[in-house]
């Protein structure tokens, strides 16, 4: 099975995969890269109104063959009532 390296960035921490993992083919590597995005988001959201989660797949030659991102974009559409809403939130911009 070929080896793939899946790098990821959760908006704070960049993880460069030096060890790599064996997958059946490119499609399997893509599946596992995408599968990580919801887990990364679950660990960090809600934490502000903007965040971008990125994964990318490198092949054995070191070439990026696939990348994907998941973007959070939040913002008030009208002035919020009260300050004590649940969870950490940014003040209205």
């Amino acid at each position: 099975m070929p080896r793939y390296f899946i790098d990821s960035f959760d908006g704070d921490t960049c993880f460069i995969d030096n060890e790599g993992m064996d997958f059946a083919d490119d499609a399997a590597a893509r599946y596992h890269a995408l599968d990580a995005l919801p887990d990364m988001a679950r660990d960090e959201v809600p934490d502000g109104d903007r965040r971008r989660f990125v994964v990318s797949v490198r092949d054995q030659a070191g070439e990026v063959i696939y990348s994907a991102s998941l973007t959070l974009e939040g913002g008030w559409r009208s002035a919020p009532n009260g300050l004590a809403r649940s969870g950490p939130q940014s003040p209205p911009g």
Partner: protein
Amino acid sequence: VTDFEPLIKALARRDEVSAAERRLIENLPKRIKSFRKGEELVQEHSRPAESCLVMHGFAAREVYLRDGKRQITAVHIPGDFVDLHAFLLKQMDHSVVALSECQAAFVPHQDLLRVVDEAPHLGRLLWLSTVIDGAIQRAWIACIGRRSSTAHFGHLICELYLRLNAVGLAEKSTFQFPVTQEELADILGLSLVHVNRTLRELRSAGLITWKGSTIEILDFDGLATLSDFDPSYLNLVSEPR
């Protein structure tokens, strides 16, 4: 060391086990069987006439979904009676597989029944072991449902260390846990790549090392704090039961 030593150690950590009770356990008739990694110790929907005690290696309870995804719902270590359930359930609602090379002792239900009748206190200790299994399941549900990936991962490592330590299989903050990252992902209910990320975080925080199948906890208190780990649920206190 007798075959039942890990079980006796696990029970003796929670209450006094008398010499007579020890003899009753050691004299239980048993059928010993070895399993390769991935083989089933107990099959789903079967109606076992014996209960199975892990003697060496690791076993897991697993649930497969129709799409092929798997959740490992429990990890069992030497000394765990993995299907004491079947004693009362009669029909198994899940399967138990070898998570590593594994050796198990199968004890006929009729002999367990006899021992429990002869020594009710021993019966309560075996009951306690299934109650602790339930406590571990609660801790896992809380981890899967609510904890961050790092806290969940750290929680698992703290738990495994203390459980293995209780049966004499972990010392000086080090233990063997021969699982693949895929299996780890199925234990934690996380994606393979995120498990990798999380492991890397715990390593770079200086909390653990993981080489081959050897895990060393470099800072137990730090790991326990990060994971919000409270060992009470493991009942590692000797008191009258």
